[in-house]
């Protein structure tokens, strides 16, 4: 019987070596280990063995069973792996072919930069206010210290609806509207469309965007104006950005200033971008004129404030290197897709 078992072991080994599929492997398993298999047949003969021989042969038979079982398991694993490898080999694809893109739309460049500006100011505690685009002359001019026949009206050629109603030429009327409805402390920006009677060319448009800013509180000084606008410039143009404050005139702020930043292209050395000045003007502002506070219903003895206005188109054009403002309103999809 011992020989029988040894022969079984070597036969099984030989047969397993030639097996190439799982079904052949199953046939081998049934042949040796099945209910009617060869090993079972050997075990059935155990009854005829002596008490001494029985454990020895039993042990030997178990060894053979274990051996064949292990071998079948190993063979199963390797056949499965071969099968998987074969499948993988047939399934290779051209990974360089274009993907199936879910095409998203594009945000308009004006909105992209406006979102950034809003984020910067919201981070400094500014809320966002809005005012009407068709506005009263009172809010757009008179309440801002620009009475009728004031020469400052010349710099803002106005579209009129009636002699009292107009398309706002600036976002500054929002200052008065906010002051009328909200008590200090105030900290707002008011972005929006403004209109001036300028024919369309590369740097002019009868419609463009401004971002008004207004802060009113007790003890606000030009130092807060400077600190706020410097922080804004650094956030928008990078931490290396330097700012320069120049005296200017706006009827509704006093003192007034224009703010230049160091040219982001040449760093201030002078280049065509900054017309060799090293500085680029980005906004105007100043301390809210006490009369304007009063016009907005705020006590100028107790409160002071600062205001500023940023031209959105200008900073968008700088940001993306645009040389023609018209592109922003032509809305050619080939342009929009670049952003």
């Amino acid at each position, binding site marked *: 019987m011992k020989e029988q078992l040894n022969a079984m072991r070597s036969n099984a080994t030989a047969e397993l070596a030639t097996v190439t599929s799982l079904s052949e492997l199953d046939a081998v398993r049934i042949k040796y280990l099945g209910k009617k298999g060869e090993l079972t047949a050997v075990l059935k003969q155990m009854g005829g063995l002596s008490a001494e021989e029985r454990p020895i042969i039993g042990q030997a038979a178990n060894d053979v069973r274990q051996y064949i079982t292990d071998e079948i398991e190993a063979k199963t694993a390797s056949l499965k792996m071969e099968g998987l490898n074969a499948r993988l080999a047939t399934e290779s694809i051209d990974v360089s072919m274009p993907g199936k893109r879910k095409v998203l739309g594009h945000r308009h460049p004006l909105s992209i930069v406006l979102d950034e500006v809003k984020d910067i100011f919201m981070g400094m505690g500014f809320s966002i206010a809005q005012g009407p685009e068709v506005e009263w002359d009172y809010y757009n001019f008179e309440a801002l210290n620009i009475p009728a026949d004031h020469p400052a009206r010349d710099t803002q050629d106005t579209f009129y609806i009636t002699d009292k109603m107009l398309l706002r030429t600036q976002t500054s009327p929002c200052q008065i509207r906010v002051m009328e409805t909200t008590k200090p402390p105030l900290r707002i920006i008011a972005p929006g469309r403004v209109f001036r009677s300028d024919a369309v060319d590369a740097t002019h448009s009868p419609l463009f965007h401004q971002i008004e800013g207004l802060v009113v509180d007790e003890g606000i000084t030009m130092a807060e104006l400077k600190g706020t606008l410097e922080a804004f410039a650094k956030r928008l143009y990078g931490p290396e950005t330097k700012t320069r404050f120049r005296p200017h005139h706006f009827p509704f702020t006093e003192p007034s200033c224009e703010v230049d930043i160091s040219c982001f292209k040449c760093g201030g050395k002078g280049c065509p971008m900054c017309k060799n000045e090293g500085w680029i003007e980005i906004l105007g502002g100043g301390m809210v004129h006490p009369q304007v506070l009063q016009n907005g219903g705020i006590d100028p003895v107790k409160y002071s404030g600062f205001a500023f206005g940023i031209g959105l188109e200008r900073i968008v054009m700088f940001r993306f290197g645009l040389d023609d403002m018209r592109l922003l309103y032509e809305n050619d*999809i080939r342009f929009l897709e670049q952003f």
Partner: protein
Amino acid sequence: MYLSKRWLADFVAVKDTDKNFAEALTLSGSKVEGYEVEGSEFENIVVGKIDSIEKHPDADNLWVCSVDIGESTPLQIVTGAQNLTVGDIIPVAKDNSVISGGKRIKAGELRGVKSEGMLCSIAELGLTLHDFPYAVEDGIFILGDDCDKTLGLDIRDAIGLNDTIVEFEITSNRPDCLSVVGLAREVAATYDLPFEVETPVVKNGIENVADYLKVDIEVPETCYRYVGGVVKNARIAPSPRWMRERLRASGVRPINNIVDITNYVMLEYGQPMHAFDLRFLEGNHVIVRNAVAGETITTLDGEERELTSDIMVIADAKKPVAVAGVMGGEYSGIMDDTKTIVFESACFNGPSVRRAAKALGMRTESSSRFEKQLNPDDCNRVLTRALELVQLLDAGDVVSGVVDRYVSPVKANTLPFDPEWTNKFIGINISADKQAKILRRIGFSVENGIVTIPTFRNDVTHQADLSEEIARFYGYNNIPSHALSGIANASLTKRQSFNALLEKLAISSGLSEVQSFSFVSPKDYDKICLPSDSTLRDFVVILNPLGEDTSVMRTSSMPSMLSVLARNYNNRNESALLFELATVYKSNGLEELPDENQELVIGMYGKDTDYYVLKGIIEEILYRCGISDYDITAVTKCPVFHPGRCGKILINEKEVAILGEVHPQVLTNYEIETRAYMACIDVEYLFNIANLERVYKALPKFPATTYDLAFVVEKTLPVLTLQKTIVNASGENLESIELFDVYEGTQVGEGKKSVAFNLKFRSAKRTLTDEECNLAINAAIEAAEGIGAVLRS
């Protein structure tokens, strides 16, 4: 404003580089736009003298000159000019020189004769006969006695083409800085240098001005002062070189001595003057009055203008001779035979001049100065300066005295001197002494706690104005910077967040954002075929538009979107999928501001676009806005859309959106030769009904049962009607229903269609039995049959 630095040196001695000068002035409040050194493009042009002239051996029109330029050997230069004689002093462009326009001159040969340079005409020096009246246009510029004739001298120094011109941007509150004196004061204050303007003096006048001129001001509220002077025996001639070159540097063309004097004084003091011929002043009488309605005047530019009663004129005994502060009449100018001249130095009310100039449509140098409100205190000094210059130039005999009617004297403003207020307002700490010193530098007086503001600075009326004066000379950039302190609540309003959500949804749906103008043409509403009585034609109309294209505020965003689609189509872009969150303006008449509402307008054409792509985007937007219950009905009569391919979405029976394929006629009007689709959503209404609150619902624990049902219905029956019927009958366990097939064809018969749905039933509490599901299905089938549907087996 162009400032000649040579002229500036009459008043203040500043020593600094041009670059630093520009920066210093810019930072003290007089913004320098740029500066230019005259003649800076010239190289190697010197003064020379013609030693000899010989005819060119091979050319009749050419001359060979020997030119002495102060060097050991003379130059041989060939010229085609015919105006030269031996001994003439002329500009010589040597070998390798640069003349006007950047043109480089090299030695060479002309018809075989060596030429070591070029002799220059006035134009080749970038000048005109106005600069040198004795020069000729078609010949070489022969230097006159007003030039330095040192041979070999740089031509720029010889003819005075070596000034530096600084261009300033002067803001409307500072008309005083539209003058050399005003800017000199700023320069002196900026550099803390002494500054003085000498008082002009007229000596030895003849006769008495009162015998020549009488002045009456009838309108003291708009004409504050009128000062007149008279010059007899006028000797009209070109002005001297120094005056011509200062005018040139200031951008004013020299004409003759009298006209030049009025311009020179205006540039120096900022006050426009007027000179006119006494011959044409009827009755030797100047009357400042308002025009009589219907009165006319022919102005210097040759145009006859009708005047109205609110326009102030300078008149003589019979007729207006000038529109006050704006422009003189045609006979009032200086002519070659003018003998007796009246000089006028007056001061008018700014707004009044501004209104007159605007009404007559003629903005002049004079009106643009007067409208900023000039200083009447200056009139006499200005006139005296002009008469002083007449004597200096020997342009005529000055009659003694002036006629001075100062009817509305200006009062100097005063303000309390409050250094603490300024320190607190600006955020600095400057001593009272230092503040007073700054104010004195710009002509303010500070005495006994009172600041007296000079009358040329009537823009200063408030403590804040004084603070600005102190801040700008202290230096804005020396003021410290502080971050804002305190707590502020910054958050978007719900409405603002909603816009942001819509924009995100639109972009995620593949739409790109556009920005179109808020104003459109009324003709756009013809292009979208709106009937003439449509309320959308009730526009907010711009009184003074740039053109019809931008003359009314849009009442609908659809014309804007169609224009954008058309432009993209015209630019041969294959497809475009676009949206705009657009404001539209609904008129409330002329006494109230219009309503400004927002629309989300979507437009598309080209690859992968059709009605259902558009509708899918809108469904997704509605879903994300938490809106599941809405009706959609076919719209057959909206002229913008295809009558068979347009629907509107109703919520609580109110329209929230319209969508469809654009009507072929509209497409034709926009020259779009492909199908296009457009939708317009009422954002205000959508915001009101949107439900953005989300509450968690437990995930299902029990299995679902699904059924497919197919019905044959009339082709015209909207699928949504059938679907709603099924949903209403299917009971509470219907989890979802989805259309998966619509079929039309011979198998279902003419005029019919087959519609197939997938229904999914599920309960949150238990596994549903077959019996329960079958009951629901049967109820659904019965309800569908109730509206004429036939179940397909």
